[in-house]
């Protein structure tokens, strides 16, 4: 691990910073899973790690929660270093894994009591916290029911609740909405928003751009184990300048059309993906007639055109050359 002296200047410990991850690195054999990743999360802040599957989000989270040993780098939770041993720093973390890590044949209350006891809660304090968390996640009426009888959304909520029992200062959620119906997804996101508002530091990984945009105060974009950019949505989008994201659905020689588009002034990128052409352009609406004319000239039939204001998807495309969900 790097010494404290190697912590980048902007990540120096401040009283508000709950998590500081500094120059983290992790390899599995020849594969680099996390490569020199640094970021910090302050109290009351929701930080999103945005990246496609396999980008290194879960490995980063497992390093932060002390479930994996980093090859290099340092992690401080509320000023205390984390490790894979039973360090006190772990008491500050509420970890919500991607999978539903609950006993299906125990009741909601029994599950919460189990996880509470792992964090040293017992007796009245434990009962009190279990009741509070059941209220918070809206499962008070189902506390005595077995988890196996719950819907997917209810399981997700309980999964989050199990991470809140000991009132952590840092809540780490690893893709908590994967496989969740839209209604439950909304409920989960509202809950996460409230945790941040209550002063908790939240680290949230997702490969859903909309979630990162809606929930996170700051976003770190991660790809192939590297944090390629981070900032607020506004800061990230500003990297693109006045760019628009144009998506054409067409039939014919799409490669030729993409080639032709690259030659047009104002178009920075043109990529063919899944029967579509994705363009990154300055003042995209003004360029549309020229694009359509180019399509007509090479005999390509354009079926639909969509012009979008720059978003994190466009930022990701701009930074990595690939779409977020590939």
């Amino acid at each position, binding site marked *: 691990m790097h010494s404290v002296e190697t912590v980048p200047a902007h990540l120096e410990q401040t009283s508000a910073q709950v998590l500081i991850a500094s120059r983290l690195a992790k390899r599995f054999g020849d594969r680099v899973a996390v490569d020199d990743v640094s970021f910090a999360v302050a109290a009351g802040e929701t930080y999103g790690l945005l990246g496609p599957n396999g980008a290194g989000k879960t490995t980063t989270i497992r390093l932060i929660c002390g479930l994996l040993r980093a090859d290099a780098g340092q992690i401080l939770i509320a000023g205390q270093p984390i490790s894979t041993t039973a360090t006190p720093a772990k008491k500050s973390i509420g970890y919500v*894994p991607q999978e539903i890590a609950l*006993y299906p044949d*125990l009741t909601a209350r029994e599950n919460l009591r189990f996880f509470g006891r792992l964090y040293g809660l017992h007796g009245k304090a434990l009962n009190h916290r279990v009741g509070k968390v059941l209220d918070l996640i809206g499962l008070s009426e189902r506390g005595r029911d077995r988890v196996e009888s719950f819907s997917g959304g209810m399981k997700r909520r309980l999964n989050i609740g199990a991470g809140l029992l000991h009132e952590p200062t840092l809540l780490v959620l690893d893709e908590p909405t994967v496989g969740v119906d839209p209604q439950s997804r909304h409920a989960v996101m509202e809950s996460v928003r409230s945790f941040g508002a209550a002063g908790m530091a939240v680290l949230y990984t997702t490969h859903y751009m909309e979630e990162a945009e809606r929930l996170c105060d700051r976003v770190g974009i991660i790809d192939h184990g590297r944090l390629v950019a981070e900032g607020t949505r506004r800061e990230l989008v500003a990297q693109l300048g006045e760019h628009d994201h144009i998506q054409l659905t067409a039939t014919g020689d799409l490669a030729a059309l993409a080639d032709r588009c690259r030659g047009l002034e104002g178009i920075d990128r043109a990529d063919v993906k899944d029967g579509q052409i994705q363009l990154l352009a300055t003042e995209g609406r003004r360029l549309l007639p020229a694009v359509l004319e180019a399509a007509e000239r090479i005999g390509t039939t354009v079926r639909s055109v969509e012009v979008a204001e720059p978003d994190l998807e466009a930022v990701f495309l701009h930074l990595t050359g690939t779409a977020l969900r590939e």
Partner: protein
Amino acid sequence: MTALAVAAASLRRMLRDRTALFFVVLLPVLVIAIIGTVVHNPGGFRIGVLAGQAAGPALATSLVDDLGAAGPVEFQTDEQAARTALRRGELDAVVLVPVDLEATLLRGDDVVIPVLAGGAESTQSAVRSAVSAAVARHAERVQAAAFAARRTNSSVAEQLPRATALQRVTPRISVSTENVASGSDYLPLGFGYSAPTMLVLFVFINALAGGATVVQTRQLGIYSRALAAPVRARDLVFGETLSYLTFALLQSALIIGTGSLLFGVSWGNLPAAIALVVTWALVGTGAGMLSGAVFKTPDQASAIGPVVGIAFAMLGGCMWPLEIVPETVRTVGHATPHAWAVDAWITLLSRAGGLADIATDLAVLAGFAAGMLGLAAVLLRRRLSS
């Protein structure tokens, strides 16, 4: 605290699994009842007689009838078959009724009746007494008939029915013996056989199959999540070990209680029996934890565990006494912990043994338990930490 939380959660899950409870509660009781009833203790000694001799003259037939007082008489085809049955422990003694018994007796000459005995010396002695008593009873009639024949100038054959009738109504002075510690090399028959062997079999099998619980917990990501808390992997492993041990002890207590209350089984010397039950529960715990560490899916543990358990039980003498199998199989059988546990139960129940008598068995079983628990702990901790 962590270990207790893990143990409580796992134990609650095990006790809540109704399918598993069938195998833990109902099936053992059922099997004990069936085997105990079918392989019941006939009472007395099992006496073998050669079929050809028994179907002979009247005096030989009546001698066989008298032998029935010593225990059930089983007819053997020839002396070789009788000796084999004796060696296998299927008979306690073989009475070779002389072919010329009737002629010799009617002549008034002396007769010697050879008896082949097997098993421990104390058994031989008891069988000899029982057979002697039966022969003596037969001789009383023959002597009475001979006496009457001499006095009345008639034949022994004519007087024999009268002597038999008189013997029936004449008051008898007899010695009552009870075969409490027969000293045979296999478990007593009936529930005294089925209960301890089924305890050995089911505690082990259910522990092996119960490894599925650990595998499922691993798959659910609960251990991984737990390790994000300030807990140590060894506390999780210790907690699971505690739950398996408690479960194995509960099942043992159930079988012992059922055996005693429903089937009247005596479990022998109390301290020795407790030591054996606890040691065997540790062996089961080791097997269950190893199953939880080795298998990749709960289905593997549920399916393969019982197969391994039954195979070990067969080899180890839970299904039949190891004394009736060839020497090689008996040696191989002692590669399983079952054989040592069954040996120890035999010593306690069949030979009225105590703690010192089963010390070697307990030491070997403790070795099995330590080996399996140690290996399981290493594998499980490695899996949890990876």
